[in-house]
């Protein structure tokens, strides 16, 4: 199978969908590669730095039959378009009674770990999860990145594609042909029996690395990647946790009101999953602080493999502890 970087896989997804459907257009302040060469300046729009305008234009053009891809480039730039995201995009179909579809894809990079400091290291997907009305994809491999982004572009709803900055250069196998990954289907990246680690984006590969290390200690880890946060395939996550009885949820967003919190709640609210738990649900998330610049401080703020391993050992220890009477 071909090896592509995460970024190449994303670029390929856009190019293939633009070839497939003349109604796909893309708007951004900048592009990777030279998409104008193939698709022309009508469909590939270099825009002023006007995120609110771009975000709303994506919506307006989508409501009129086009399939725009609006690339905010960094999720942090989307915050200046909050009206269009929060008040318009997430509500427009419902509040108009389903009169029209709005097939727009919003793309952005997300996450820290590359020295970009407080503003450009955020992972705010849970803010969008809260809105009810936006689909959200968060791939962790080049193959998933390509397949999910293609599905997003074909979806008839606003979809936000969170593309992890630390994964940009990561390489992996990508199937040939029209590779699609359905929105709303989690993936078990590694099967195991003792502890489930639910990882998001970059922390899927970290969880896999930890699982490899712990296997040498005789601990069997199952790694589950939700891949999409809305809709969230909680059934797959619950099935894994019912099997292992222990779960550690890892994400680089701070824990408060996070995707990790939502997953934890959905696990323990389910009677069968709750009864199957041998230990409390454990979250490993960023320290609630603006992400600092200096590598030493940044590493201290974001989850590490050691943090994940420690959490796994804790849930194992806890599950062996007799309940005090």
């Amino acid at each position, binding site marked *: 199978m071909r090896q592509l970087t995460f970024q190449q896989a994303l670029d390929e997804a856009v190019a293939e969908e633009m070839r497939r459907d003349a109604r796909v*257009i893309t708007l951004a302040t900048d592009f990777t590669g030279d998409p104008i060469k193939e698709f022309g300046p*009508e*469909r590939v*729009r270099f*825009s*002023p730095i*006007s995120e*609110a*305008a*771009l*975000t*709303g*234009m*994506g*919506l*307006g*053009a*989508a*409501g*009129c*039959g*086009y399939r*725009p891809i609006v690339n905010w480039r960094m999720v942090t730039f989307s915050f*200046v378009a909050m*009206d*269009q995201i929060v*008040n*318009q995009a997430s509500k*427009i*179909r*419902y*509040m*108009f*009674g*389903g*009169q*029209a*579809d*709005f*097939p727009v894809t919003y793309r952005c990079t997300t996450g820290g770990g590359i020295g970009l400091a407080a503003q450009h290291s955020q992972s705010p997907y849970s803010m969008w999860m809260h809105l*009810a*009305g936006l*689909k959200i994809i968060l791939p962790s491999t080049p193959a998933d990145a390509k397949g999910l982004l293609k599905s997003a572009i074909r979806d*008839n*709803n606003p979809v936000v594609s969170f593309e992890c900055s630390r994964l940009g250069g990561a390489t992996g196998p990508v199937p040939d042909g029209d590779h699609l990954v359905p929105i709303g289907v989690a993936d078990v990246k590694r099967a195991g029996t003792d502890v489930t680690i639910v990882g998001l984006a970059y922390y899927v590969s970290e969880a896999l690395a930890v699982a490899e290390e712990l296997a040498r200690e005789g601990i069997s880890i199952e790694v589950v990647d939700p891949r999409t946060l809305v809709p969230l395939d909680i059934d797959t996550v619950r099935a894994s946790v019912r099997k292992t009885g222990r779960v550690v949820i890892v994400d680089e967003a701070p824990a408060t009101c996070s995707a990790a919190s939502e997953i934890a709640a959905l696990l323990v609210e389910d009677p069968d999953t709750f009864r199957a738990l041998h230990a409390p649900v454990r979250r490993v998330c960023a320290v609630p602080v603006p992400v600092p610049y200096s590598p030493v401080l940044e590493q201290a703020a974001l989850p590490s493999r050691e943090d994940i391993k420690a959490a796994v050992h804790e849930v194992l220890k806890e599950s062996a502890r007799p309940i005090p009477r």
Partner: protein
Amino acid sequence: MTIDKSQLVRMLRTMILIREFDELAIKLRVAGKIYGAVHPYVGQEAVAVGVCASLRTSDRVTSNHRGHGHCIAKGADIRRMMAELFGRATGYCKGKGGSMHIADFAVGMLGANGIVGGGLPIACGAALAAQLEGKGDVTVCFFGDGAAAEGEFHEALNIASVWKLPIVFVCENNQYAANNAVDVQHPRIDIAPHAAPFHIPGIAVDGNDALEVHARTDEAVARARRGDGPSLLECKTYRWHFHAMRHAIPAETRPADEIASWKARDPIARFEHELLERGALAVPDIRAMRAGVAADLEAAVAFAEASPFPDPKDLLVDMFAE
């Protein structure tokens, strides 16, 4: 510009319908028959009607919180509008939107909007679609003087100019942004000059003169259809009533002489006079027209009241498209 008599008569009837629709909406809200907020368009009828008289069905408009007039002028069905105000399943949004979110995509009405300035980027997107379609359709974006203080206004004018989008920005300067007079929110009380830095035409027009609004819109629309890009049309007008009401009509805070001077320039009385002068109709015709409007509104209320409320089990319907 030549408008035939039948079009003039239709314009007058639409203006009267808009006024009576919103006067009725106020009464219905006071009576507790409808819910939420009402933002009456009364006094501004010449703008919606003058502008929309220049448009075809395939042209699109976006609106704001004071949107009933824009809906009616673009051709929306007052029965389904009324049903929406009544929160019924037969309303435009199946009772999910209410007054501030009425839309009718079938006639190119892309929605009212509860956020000041929120419609400007969406209108630019509709104009981008029209530009790509290449059929000569245009988009009109209605907003108020208050929206001119929002960042989205400046972003929209800039990108529309850079990309030569087929759009007409119609600012209804009704002298008040919510309850703040235009001169306390802008260094100058004119909005049209905002066009100059973006290198697009900025035209100020008497927004209480339907024919003048229509003539200037024709020029701006022709420019957009030719591919020459956007224009900003500032229509100076006045809202006769309050900014917004919920359960009760708020106390008037504006000077009485100011209100009186604008009511003396009633756009409907003026247009009626103009049409009588031109011989487009006679006094009994106007009387009959008003009776017809009243009957239509009565029928709209009857339709709404006879319509079912939405079924709570449909709460999640329309969240996502297939």
